[in-house]
């Protein structure tokens, strides 16, 4: 986890240096804000991972000598199949088409999204995996 | 022909102007050597397909092009040779031969990291020298206000009555004096257009709300073709213009013509004179069936 954190922090640092050069030189707000946001996108998750990595023992995948036996057991639960990504996608599809073909398409759009969100939540509660 | 509304003559200075890098005198002296050598030997260095250009700054650009091309030819040639050598030399000899599993060679890796960095800074230094010339704003003898609209151009000269306007294949022709600094202020009232003079190795965008400015100095007299290079809608393909470079005295006389209505009419007619020529090669064709404002 340390290395993951370091990569993000280094990227953030690089963008920080970049905006420190770019802003005083150009006084261009738009680009400076965007690079600054890039810096935050490196620093925020980076420092979270850093904070975490100092509080945990290196995982088997962080260690050169990590062996397969250490990984035995549950990796995580993976959903087998679910219709809700599809319904959510189609809901988004209809909603976007509503921007063009008329607001009425929001009815199926929002309907499908609502169905997908409630359905997926319920599915996760039931832990709809195999 | 529609008249284009006249140009707003209070342009803001371009922000690009303050973006110049000053190189110390010593660095400049150091750089001047190869650049000068290149310029002196200009006739022996191949053109690499580019035009020499009809402006001083365009010629600097051309020499920069030559310099970059030499660098690219050397680097690209060497790299290609290495690739081809590897491909020819290391084709597999037998199906189950396993070569030595070399993975690192640090000195070599450092070599091909450092050397490109040096090359890049060399190219950058040459770029800065030429860029400062191209973006320099020496005191102009003449200012031209260029206004781009869908799909034509108008050229006016602040402080005078001269005004040339024309659309698409009328290819309006404006005039500038040779050997004098001509300052351009480029504007657009509708969408983004591109002002491109291929024989001058130069282009700039015409953007609503921004006065894009530069100065150049044409060398030879003659007529040169230009056209819009930034997609601007339906007739972008044929948004032509021309520039006629004349002697300074001819230029003065031309500008003076606009002081009388008859003279102005004559000059404008002359500016669109080749209209027949151009439009004869452009067939009348169905232009649109849909999707156009």
């Amino acid at each position, binding site marked *: 986890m340390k290395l993951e954190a370091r990569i993000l922090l280094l990227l953030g640092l690089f963008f920080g240096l970049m905006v420190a050069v*770019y802003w005083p030189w150009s006084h261009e707000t738009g680009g400076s804000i965007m690079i600054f946001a890039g810096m935050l996108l490196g620093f925020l998750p980076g420092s979270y991972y850093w904070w975490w990595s100092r509080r945990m023992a290196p995982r088997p995948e962080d260690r050169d000598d990590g062996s397969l036996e250490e990984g035995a057991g549950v990796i995580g639960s993976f959903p087998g*199949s679910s219709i809700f990504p599809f319904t959510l996608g189609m809901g988004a599809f209809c909603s976007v088409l509503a921007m063009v073909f008329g607001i009425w398409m929001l009815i199926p759009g929002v309907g499908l999204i609502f169905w997908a969100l409630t359905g997926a939540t319920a599915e996760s509660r039931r832990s709809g995996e*195999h | 022909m529609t008249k284009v509304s006249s140009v707003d003559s209070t342009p803001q200075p371009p922000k690009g102007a303050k973006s110049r890098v000053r190189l110390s005198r010593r660095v400049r002296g150091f750089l001047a050597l190869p650049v000068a050598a290149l310029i002196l030997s200009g006739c022996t260095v191949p053109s690499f397909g580019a035009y020499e250009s009809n402006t001083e700054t365009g010629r600097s650009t051309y020499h920069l092009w030559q310099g970059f091309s030499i660098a690219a030819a050397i680097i690209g040639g060497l790299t290609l040779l290495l690739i081809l050598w590897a491909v020819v030399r290391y084709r597999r000899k037998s199906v189950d031969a396993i070569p030595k599993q070399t993975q690192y060679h640090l000195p070599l890796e450092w070599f091909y990291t450092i050397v*490109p960095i040096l090359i890049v800074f060399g190219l950058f230094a040459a*770029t800065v020298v*030429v860029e400062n010339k191209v973006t320099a704003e020496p005191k102009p003898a003449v200012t031209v206000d260029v206004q781009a609209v869908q799909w034509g151009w108008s050229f006016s000269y602040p402080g005078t009555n001269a005004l040339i306007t024309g659309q698409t294949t009328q290819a309006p022709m404006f005039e500038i004096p040779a050997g004098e600094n001509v300052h351009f202020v480029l504007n657009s009232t509708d969408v983004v257009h591109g002002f491109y003079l291929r024989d001058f190795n130069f282009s700039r965008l015409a953007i609503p709300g921004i006065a894009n400015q530069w100065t150049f100095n044409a060398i030879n007299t003659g007529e040169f073709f230009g056209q819009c*290079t930034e997609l601007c809608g339906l007739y972008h*393909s044929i948004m032509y213009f021309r520039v006629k470079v004349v002697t300074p005295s001819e230029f003065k006389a031309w500008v003076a013509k606009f002081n009388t209505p008859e003279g102005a009419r004559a000059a404008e007619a002359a500016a669109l004179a080749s209209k027949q020529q151009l439009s004869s090669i452009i067939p009348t064709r169905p232009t649109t069936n849909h999707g156009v404002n």
Partner: protein
Amino acid sequence: MTDVLEHAAAEGHSHDEHGHDEHHGPSGLLKWLTTTDHKIIGMSYTITSVIMLVVGGAFAELIRIQLMSPNGTLVNYAQYNELFTMHGSVMIYLFAGPFAFGALANFVVPIQIGAPDMAFPRLNALSYWLYLSGSITMLLGFFTAGGAANFGWVGYAPLSNAANSPGAGADLWIGALLLTGFSAIFTGVNLVATIFYLRAPGMTLFRMPIFTWNLLVTGILILLAFPVLTAGLIMLFADRHFGTHIYEVAGGGVPVLWQNIFWFWGHPEVYILALPFFGMTTEIISVFSKKPVFGYKGMVFATLTIAALSLGVWAHHLFTTGTVLLPFFSIMSLLIAVPTGIKMFNWIGTMWQGEIWFSTAMLMALGFVITFLIGGLTGIYLASPPLDFFAHDTYFVVAHFHSVVMALVFAGLGGLYYWGPKMTGYLLDERIGKSQFWLTFIGAQLLTFPMYILGLKGMPRRMANYPHDPQWKFMNDLSSVGAFLIGIGTLLFVVNIVYSWKRYPAGDNPWDAGTLEWFTSSPPPHHNFYRLPQIRSERPTWDYNHPDKKALAHGHAAPEGNH
């Protein structure tokens, strides 16, 4: 499409050597609609994006036919604007991007790190459905009264505002980009989370195959870049329909803001497209030279450097606006050549003293390397503002980026020849493959070289005709011949798929490759592995098969252990 997928999935079961697939989900169409399996999603992505390549390619052929005469009459001005807009948009948004980070990446990355699936399988499925509906949305433009979007794939404001582009096609284009944009963001989240959290024990970051490394960095870049585009599009839509004036001078807005926002996404996007293809090439060259990736750590460093620099170069697309800090963007852009050069030399170093097997996949990778060399070198010119003033918006630029994107197409085809057998269980025919390679390779060079010359002669891009300069015809004709060769090559690819259908069983590891996906069956079982080898380098399968052939540093006789 459903049928094909169904087959592929069904094969997955029948050819499962271990024979006991414990997964009993729905079957048929419902299976495709409800799947969350990264392999099936990767397959769907692959098929959809290759179809988009063919669609975009068909538009390109029409463009090239139009340009074979100075007064081309195949289409009129309005249709021509639609054609290149949709060619560029389909190719970039619907082919290159999704193929790069959705297709092979989706299939291969989890397997390469020994994971059973992506970290968020349902989100992964959602990515695909958004991508598919985005693709349909964009193409729907052709069926509206006003035609498809026609303001170029970059949609510069104010040409893309309501007054200048009133049609529904423009809104569909925006909608499509919103859908595919969210799809990309979700994929980015998924890639980063998968690589951070689901690696097998011993698979440290510096033991990940370069392909996976590049997708990690691609994922991060997606998260940095795509939200900017999405925000920009929402503002564009607001300008068009809700009366805001963000990009309009009239209400105090700034048209170049769009250019800044677009390219702040657009340049990182170039690397979002390119990095996965770099990764494919790296894997292929290493495997078919029978050597580890030369300069592995340098390769990782180069990838990270490219990503970092790519956020600071957007305004090299704005040099001619006269509004940007020329030296800053010039040096940043030139510097990207350094890590790219490192990669180039690492590829050569990997081949050096190898035992190169010229399979179709390897030929395609070599096609990538050579074509990309040309595209990379001509890109350096454009990083120099004075040279950009001279070449901007001419065919020189079109030639430059087609050298690059055709190189990416080679890498992608190489990836399909290389990983296709893993995905389907069957090899593609090598003879047809090699003919396809040579046609496409010669075609690609013949397509781009005349374009460079045309650019230098002053032919601007996006020209429906060029009556004022009929002597450009010759070069345009050559370029069109190149395009037709590429077209025939692509047809051969389809022929190859049909011809090789279930013809040559691949086995687990037809190429003697080294990464984990070659340890499992072809296609892999549900959740990918029944067993894993011990992971002690970035080539665990190689170490398992050739325990005495570990990677070495130069001058070291003994194995270095871990590096």
